[in-house]
C-alpha cells in the first residue's frame, strides 16, 4: 500500500486463522514463524474430512512432511474408458516418484501441531461471527464458542480482538459469509470406504483407478483409491447432484470384481468448489483453501493448493507487517491474491479446458483415455501434477500430440455418429 501503516506500539500484530485444515495449519505455522501473534481456531481436532487424500510429491518436500504420515505410495494409475479400455498411466514415473495418499485426520493434526510448536495458539472452538471494525486500524472482534473440556459439550462463549483474519474454514465458510464473499458452484463428491479381502487389496497396493463414462458421472470421474487398510470408492458431479447414488452404484458395478466381498465401513459426502468466490478478501480478512474455492477442475485436487494458499497469504501478512511490527491493510493482502493468480491461474485454466473438452461425452472420454496411453502425455501430466510446474515440452512432440489428439477425437466422434445412426 502507498500509505505507510504505523508501527504497532508494544505489541505484535494479532492474526486469527479460522479452520485447522491444511490451509489453516500452513498459514498459522508461517505466521507464527514470522513473529506474528497467531491464534488458530478449529472446531474438531480429530475431524476426518471426507477427502480423496492424494498429495503431489512436491508437497512432501515443500512442507517438509515426514514420510510416515503417507499411508500409501501410488505409482500406478489406471484410467478406464466407457468401453472399459484400461490405460496404465504410471509407466513414466521414476523410481522415487509417487502420489502420496494420506488420511486427513493425520495430515491436519500434524500441520496443526507444527504450527503450535512454532508458537501459534491453537484453540478448540467454533467460530460464530465477527464484528467489523469501525476504523481502518481498529480490531475485529471474533465471537466463538470454546470447548475446553471442563464445561462439557456446550462450551463457553468468548470473544477476542484481532487485527486480521484468515478464513480457512472450508466450503461452508462462515468467514466468507461475514465478508459477503459470494457463493461458488460446487460439485458433490460421494465416497464409500470399503474394506476388501486381503487378496483383493494386494491389487490396490500401489494402484488407483479412475473410471470415466456417462454411467459413473456426467461431468467428473469415479474412483477407487487405496487407503491405509481399505479402499475408497466414489464419484462426483456438479450437474446431476440428485443422481449421485445412481452414479455411485455404477462406479461400484464397474469395479465390481475387484472389490467383491468388501464391507462398507463408512459413507461420506462433501462439497467441492468449482471456482473461486467472487470476493476472496475484504479489508483485513482473506480467504484461503476451500473457503476461497481453490480446487482444480478435472482432477479435483485441493489439499496442496489449500496448504500453499494458506502459506502464501501468511507470507504476505508477515511481509506487510514487517514481522508483526506494523499494522497491515488490504493492499498487503492483495499482494497474496496477485501472486496466487499469477502462479496458479494458468494451471486452473488448463484443467478447466481439459475437463470441458474431455469429460463432456462418452466419445470424448474414449479419446481422452486413448490419449493418456501416450508416454509423452503421461510424462507431461505427471510432471505437472507431481511438481506443480508446467515443464516446457518439446515442440515436435507437442505437434505430434496435437495431431494424435485430433485423430482420437475425430475417430471417437465418427463412432458417435455411427451410434446415433443405430439408435434412429
Amino acid at each position: 500500500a502507498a500509505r505507510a501503516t504505523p508501527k504497532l506500539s508494544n505489541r505484535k500484530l494479532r492474526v486469527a486463522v479460522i479452520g485447522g485444515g491444511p490451509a489453516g495449519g500452513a498459514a498459522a505455522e508461517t505466521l507464527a514463524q514470522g513473529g506474528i501473534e497467531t491464534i488458530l481456531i478449529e472446531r474438531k481436532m480429530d475431524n476426518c474430512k471426507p477427502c480423496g487424500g492424494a498429495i503431489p510429491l512436491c508437497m512432501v518436500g515443500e512442507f517438509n512432511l515426514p514420510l510416515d504420515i503417507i499411508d500409501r505410495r501410488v505409482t500406478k494409475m489406471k484410467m478406464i474408458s466407457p468401453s472399459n479400455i484400461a490405460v496404465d498411466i504410471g509407466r513414466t514415473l521414476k523410481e522415487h516418484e509417487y502420489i502420496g495418499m494420506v488420511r486427513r485426520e493425520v495430515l491436519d493434526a500434524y500441520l496443526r501441531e507444527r504450527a503450535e510448536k512454532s508458537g501459534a495458539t491453537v484453540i478448540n472452538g467454533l467460530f460464530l461471527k465477527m464484528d467489523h471494525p469501525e476504523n481502518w486500524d481498529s480490531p475485529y472482534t471474533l465471537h466463538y464458542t470454546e470447548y475446553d473440556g471442563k464445561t462439557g459439550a456446550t462450551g463457553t462463549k468468548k470473544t477476542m480482538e484481532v487485527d486480521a483474519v484468515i478464513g480457512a474454514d472450508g466450503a461452508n465458510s462462515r468467514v466468507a459469509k461475514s465478508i459477503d464473499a459470494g457463493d461458488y458452484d460446487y460439485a458433490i463428491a460421494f465416497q464409500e470406504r470399503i474394506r476388501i479381502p486381503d487378496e483383493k487389496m494386494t491389487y490396490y497396493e500401489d494402484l488407483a483407478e479412475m473410471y470415466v463414462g456417462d454411467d459413473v458421472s456426467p461431468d467428473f470421474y469415479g474412483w477407487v483409491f487405496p487407503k491405509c487398510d481399505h479402499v475408497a470408492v466414489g464419484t462426483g458431479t456438479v450437474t446431476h447432484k440428485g443422481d449421485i447414488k445412481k452414479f455411485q452404484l455404477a462406479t461400484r458395478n464397474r469395479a465390481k470384481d475387484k472389490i467383491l466381498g468388501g464391507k462398507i465401513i463408512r459413507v461420506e459426502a462433501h462439497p467441492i468448489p468449482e471456482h473461486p468466490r467472487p470476493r476472496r478478501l475484504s479489508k483485513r480478512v482473506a480467504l484461503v483453501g476451500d473457503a476461497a474455492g481453490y480446487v482444480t477442475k478435472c482432477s479435483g485436487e485441493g489439499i496442496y493448493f489449500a496448504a500453499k494458499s494458506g502459506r502464501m497469504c501468511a507470507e504476505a501478512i508477515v511481509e506487510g507487517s514487517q514481522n508483526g511490527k506494523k499494522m497491515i491493510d488490504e493492499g498487503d493482502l492483495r499482494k497474496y491474491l496477485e501472486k496466487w493468480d499469477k502462479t496458479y491461474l494458468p494451471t486452473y485454466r488448463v484443467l478447466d479446458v481439459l475437463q470441458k473438452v474431455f469429460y463432456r461425452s462418452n466419445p470424448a472420454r474414449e479419446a481422452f483415455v486413448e490419449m493418456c496411453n501416450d508416454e509423452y502425455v503421461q510424462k507431461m501430466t505427471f510432471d505437472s501434477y507431481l511438481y506443480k510446474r508446467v515443464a516446457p515440452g518439446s515442440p515436435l512432440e507437442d505437434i505430434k500430440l496435437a495431431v494424435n489428439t485430433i485423430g482420437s477425437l475425430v475417430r471417437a466422434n465418427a463412432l458417435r455418429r455411427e451410434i446415433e445412426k443405430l439408435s434412429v
Partner: protein
Amino acid sequence: ASSDNGTTSPVVEIPKPASVAVEEVPVKSPAESSSASENGAVGGEATDSSTETVIKYQNAKWVNGTWDLKQFEKDGKTDWDSVIVSEAKRRKWLEDNPETTSNDELVVFDTSIIPWWAWMKRYHLPEAELLNGRAAMIGFFMAYFVDSLTGVGLVDQMGNFFCKTLLFVAVAGVLFIRKNEDLDKLKDLFDETTLYDKQWQAAWKEPDSSTVSSKK
C-alpha cells in the same frame, strides 16, 4: 480442502452406511441388481455364485477383448467399414449396459488400428464435397464483389493482404459453420470458456472503496 470450522455438517447430507440406498435406484440390468440385492456389502459374498447373472458383451467376432480381424475379411482384405459398424454397436450396447471391468479379460481394441482412409471414406467424402462446393462459390462471389467494388482484379487480389485475410475468414467460416445451429454452438462454447475466467477475475473487478481510500 480444509476443514469446515464453524459448521456442524456439510451442505451435502451424509447418508448412513446402513441405508446405502441401493433399493431406490432403478435397476437396469441383472448385473446391477445382483450387487444391489446386498445391502451394505459389495457384490455379495455367499449368494454370489448362485445368483450371479452378469451380462457381458458377446459377439462371435469379439475375441479376447478385440475384434478378430480375420473374421472381417472380404476378398482377402479387411472390411474396415464393418469393423467400424461393429464397434459402434458394441459401444452403444455398453452405454446401455455398463460392463464390469475385469483384469482377466482386458479390452485391447484400439480404434487407431483402423486406417485413416477407412474413416475418411466413410465420413469425410460426402461432407468434403459439400464444403468444397461452398468454399468455391463463396470465393468466386467474393472475388467478383471485390473486383466490382474496388477494381482490383483476381490476380492482384492474391497479392493483397486484405484479400488474403478475407479468404482466410471465408475458409474458416466454411469449416466451422457447417449448419445454422453451429453458430449458436460456437457462441455457447465461447461463453462457456470465458465463464471460468470471469469467475477468477471477479476478485479484481469490484469497485472497492477501501483500496481506493488506502491508495490516497
